[in-house]
């Protein structure tokens, strides 16, 4: 019975999203949000059901003649696929919970929830398929459905950001397609299950395929110099969609590269040719560039977007160092970053809904209006900078240890430098939020109370600390869960995620 779970988990939210659109359009509007939450929750449950066999070290496999493409599609879940799809479903569930209040002032809810759920199916699908064709199929599906989420506001800016995203993502898809065709030509198969990898002989075609994969997954991950869509797409999308985009969807690019390194090619292959060096270099540039540019941004979501670029650099660095410990660091950072960046984007969304402010320079004293939101923001920022015992510290620790084991201390210096830059662009926000009373008084004059955005006429509030501006609980709870997630595992007797990641990455080596 377990063998069918992966396909079910990927296809259920897609079918559910489509059904939701028609049900809410023609039958009953009021059940829209609960239904969306139920579908997302069921998906999470379906993924979680896979836990017992995965814990036993099994791999869930099922081949389907699902599509009459030249090849059939297989579903195959190993440890790493399970862990990431669980993470994705969990984050999606929280974002779905968060969405209703954020979107209260917005339009086209039916479309938003339908595409949100379909994108979830695509994202889970990427992680539960057992071959490149399936991965490509779901990857493209996720990419196209996400476009609708990014362009959701339909104003000039989000249409521009969406178009930029769409064309780059189509180009990336075609680059992956190139790699896919070449892989099949060279190996006669595109399955991840073949021991020793698919492409074993270095050749010009093999290099071309590698470059194709690198471009395709690099665009999705936001790797320099292919990151250009990311800083526009994140601010344009609704906050829950940005949280998902940054928290998990760009990680599918990193996941794809893991599969490329370990299942399409093999470690032995890279020992011979050392092509991973170019990923190492690009990842390093991505880290520095993302951090440096983040400092310059005044739009909060834009700053978070550049920060995501820097963080994806850590992940890519960990993947491309090709040691077991580095991969543990990278996967742990995927987990960490999903929680903390998800939390930060949800905070930014709460601020936009409650005060209408998008720019950091206007946010002085906001901590007095929204203390809980800003507390979450602070916790996530600490994790971002890498202060122990927050999660960010653990992933950086693993990455640094891996760098030292490989005798490349330069990467430790890079990580420390980037952490410093993280501090430079996160702490001023916190300091201004909680300690800048003067600007708090100013900003208080513009604060909107009890409204959820544009259509409520702004009321003038009395200056001074008050809880009146705090976000509603539907928004606070997901944010708080993510914020707590940023440190709780370091305080439990066993760091469950870390142990789990160590087990699942061991399977790849």
């Amino acid at each position: 019975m377990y063998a069918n779970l992966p396909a079910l988990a990927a296809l259920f939210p897609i079918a559910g999203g489509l059904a939701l659109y028609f049900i809410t359009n023609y039958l009953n509007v009021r059940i829209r949000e609960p239904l969306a939450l139920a579908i997302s929750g069921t998906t999470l449950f379906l993924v979680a059901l896979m836990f017992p066999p995965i814990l036993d070290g099994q791999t869930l496999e099922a081949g389907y003649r699902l599509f009459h493409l030249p090849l059939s599609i297989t579903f195959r879940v190993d440890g790493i696929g399970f862990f990431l799809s669980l993470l994705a479903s969990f984050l999606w569930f929280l974002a779905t919970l968060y969405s209703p209040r954020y979107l209260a002032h917005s339009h086209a809810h039916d479309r938003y929830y339908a595409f949100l759920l379909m994108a979830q199916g695509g994202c889970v699908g990427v992680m539960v398929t057992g071959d490149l064709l399936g991965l490509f199929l779901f990857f493209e599906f996720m990419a196209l459905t996400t476009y609708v989420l990014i362009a959701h506001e339909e104003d000039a800016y989000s249409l521009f950001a969406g178009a930029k995203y769409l064309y780059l993502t189509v180009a990336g898809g075609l680059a992956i397609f190139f790699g896919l065709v070449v892989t099949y030509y060279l190996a006669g198969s595109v399955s991840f299950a073949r021991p020793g990898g698919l492409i074993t002989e270095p050749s010009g075609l093999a290099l071309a395929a590698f470059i194709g994969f690198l471009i395709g997954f690099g665009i999705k991950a936001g790797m320099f110099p292919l990151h250009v869509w990311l800083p526009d797409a994140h601010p344009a999308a609704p906050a829950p969609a940005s949280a998902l985009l940054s928290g998990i969807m760009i990680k599918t690019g990193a996941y794809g590269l893991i599969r490329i390194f370990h299942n399409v090619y093999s470690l032995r292959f890279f020992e011979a040719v050392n092509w991973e060096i170019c990923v190492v270099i690009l990842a390093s540039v991505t880290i520095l560039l993302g951090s440096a540019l983040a400092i310059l941004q005044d739009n909060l979501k834009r700053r978070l977007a550049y920060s995501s670029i820097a963080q994806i650099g850590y992940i890519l660095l960990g993947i491309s160092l090709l040691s077991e410990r580095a991969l543990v660091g990278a996967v742990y950072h995927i987990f960490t970053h999903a929680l903390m960046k998800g939390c930060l984007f949800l905070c930014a969304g709460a601020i936009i809904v409650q005060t209408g402010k998008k720019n950091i320079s206007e946010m002085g004293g906001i901590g007095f209006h929204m203390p809980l939101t800003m507390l979450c923001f602070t916790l996530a920022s600490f994790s971002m900078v890498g202060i122990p015992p927050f999660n960010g510290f653990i992933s950086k620790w693993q990455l640094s240890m891996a760098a030292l084991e490989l005798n490349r201390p330069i990467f430790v210096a890079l990580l420390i430098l980037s952490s410093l830059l993280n501090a430079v662009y996160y702490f001023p926000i916190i300091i201004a939020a909680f300690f800048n009373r003067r600007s708090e008084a100013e900003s208080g004059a513009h604060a909107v109370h009890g409204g959820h955005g544009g259509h409520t006429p702004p009321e003038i509030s009395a200056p001074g600390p008050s809880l009146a501006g705090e976000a509603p609980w539907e928004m606070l709870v997901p944010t708080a869960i993510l914020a707590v997630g940023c440190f709780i595992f370091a305080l439990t007797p066993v760091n469950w995620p870390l142990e789990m990641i160590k087990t699942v990455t061991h399977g790849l080596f």
Partner: protein
Amino acid sequence: MTSNAVTASALPLVMILIPLGCGLAALAAGLVSEKAARLLFMASVLGPAAAAPLLLKEMAGGKTLVLKFAQLLPPGGLSFRVDHLSLFMVLLFCLYGLIVFVYALEFMKDRPGRIRFWGGMSLTLAGCLGVVMAGDLFTLFLFFEFMSVIFFILIAHQKTPEASAAAMKFLFMTIIAGVALFLGCVLTYLQAGTVCFGQGGVFPAGVVPAFAAFVAFMVAFGIKSAMFPMHLWMPDAYTFAPIPAAALSSGMLLKTGVYGFIRVLYDLYGLKLVSELHWNNLLLGLACVTILYGSLNAVVQDNLNRRLAYSGIAQIGYILLGISLLTENGFIGNLYHVFAHALMKGCLFLCAGAVLVGTGKQKVSELGGVGLRMPLTMLAFTVASVTAVGLPPFNVFVTKWYLGQGALDFGQPLFLVLLLVSSMLNAAYYLPIVISAFLGEKALRQHTIGRQVRIKEASPVLLIPILLLAFGSIAFTVVAPHNWPLELARAAAQAFFAATP
């Protein structure tokens, strides 16, 4: 595997004569009763479509159907021959014709000269079926000319100066094509002593007149299939002809040109001779230019029909690329694309027609918000657009997969890169239409009264063919238990490639 069993059968002739007779009868009956003309018009496509299953049955077990009238037209006589390649084309024409004819019935309902148009469509169908079931080059030539001359009437249908000019352009080029084909026919007969198909290479190797014949065939079929630089008739014809005529041309007439290329290269010359002499490189080069030229031109067109026409040129480039690679995978890719492109481009044309009827708009820049007004039509347009870009699980993905494998078998991955560049351009000229149709504040304002969107779909008789074609883009890859077109294309490829090691 195909056996060499040959069966005599009159069925091919019947399938050609039904639309021919019905078309002529419809023209005559139109003088008396329009209702009778409509019935005969539909009968002209229902007849062959109903006979198609019989054709399949007769061909079961890999048989080839032949029919000869040796005395009818000396020196070669008139002959018909249906093998897997012909069968593929016939089935496609019947399926696609049925859908387009239903659409045309509704589309032309209140337009002047509709009887003439319907009759012309029936006769064109007869010509197309004749071309793909012809048993020798001379018979093919006859139907080829017949089809082209009839199609002239369809292009000129609207009688505007632009339509007449477009039709004249088409006529001149088609006459050149006809003369070239006749020349090729004569040269072939002089050298090989026969013009019959199915003999696996009739030319004695390496003679100069054979190359002259080859060039003549290139001109003839190149003009018909709109290969660069012989595509000149097509953008104008598509812009000024009624939509069903454009759809008919893109799905059928162009494909007869492609069919001619395949017959000549793989059958008349034979795979062995062509690959020894490398004449395919000429076609290969032109195919690549055609792909790029068509795609790049399509991006800048504002008239939707014109954009579709240039896109069609690019797609023909894919097909010619697949033909000229001379590899089995490339051949499967090309044949599958004949099918995939017919459904995809047909759907886009019919959508363009429905939008024209519904809103009176034909320019891409004016189509903002049209998806809110005609959601189902534009949903079909979206599906066809995504198909054109080649994303799985839609049809064109299969095409690109096989063409890509074919390019790698040929040893030139750059062709694959070219295909992907063209796919990117496909995205660049289709997706903006889709986006502006559904999204954007400006779009919303144009089509709303207050907050309520006025949904006003095209009439069901227009809409159902559109939806069927859109569904066709996914039907055989996802829904049907087997991908029949792909299997048939494989069988057709094997017939040619198994013979030559």
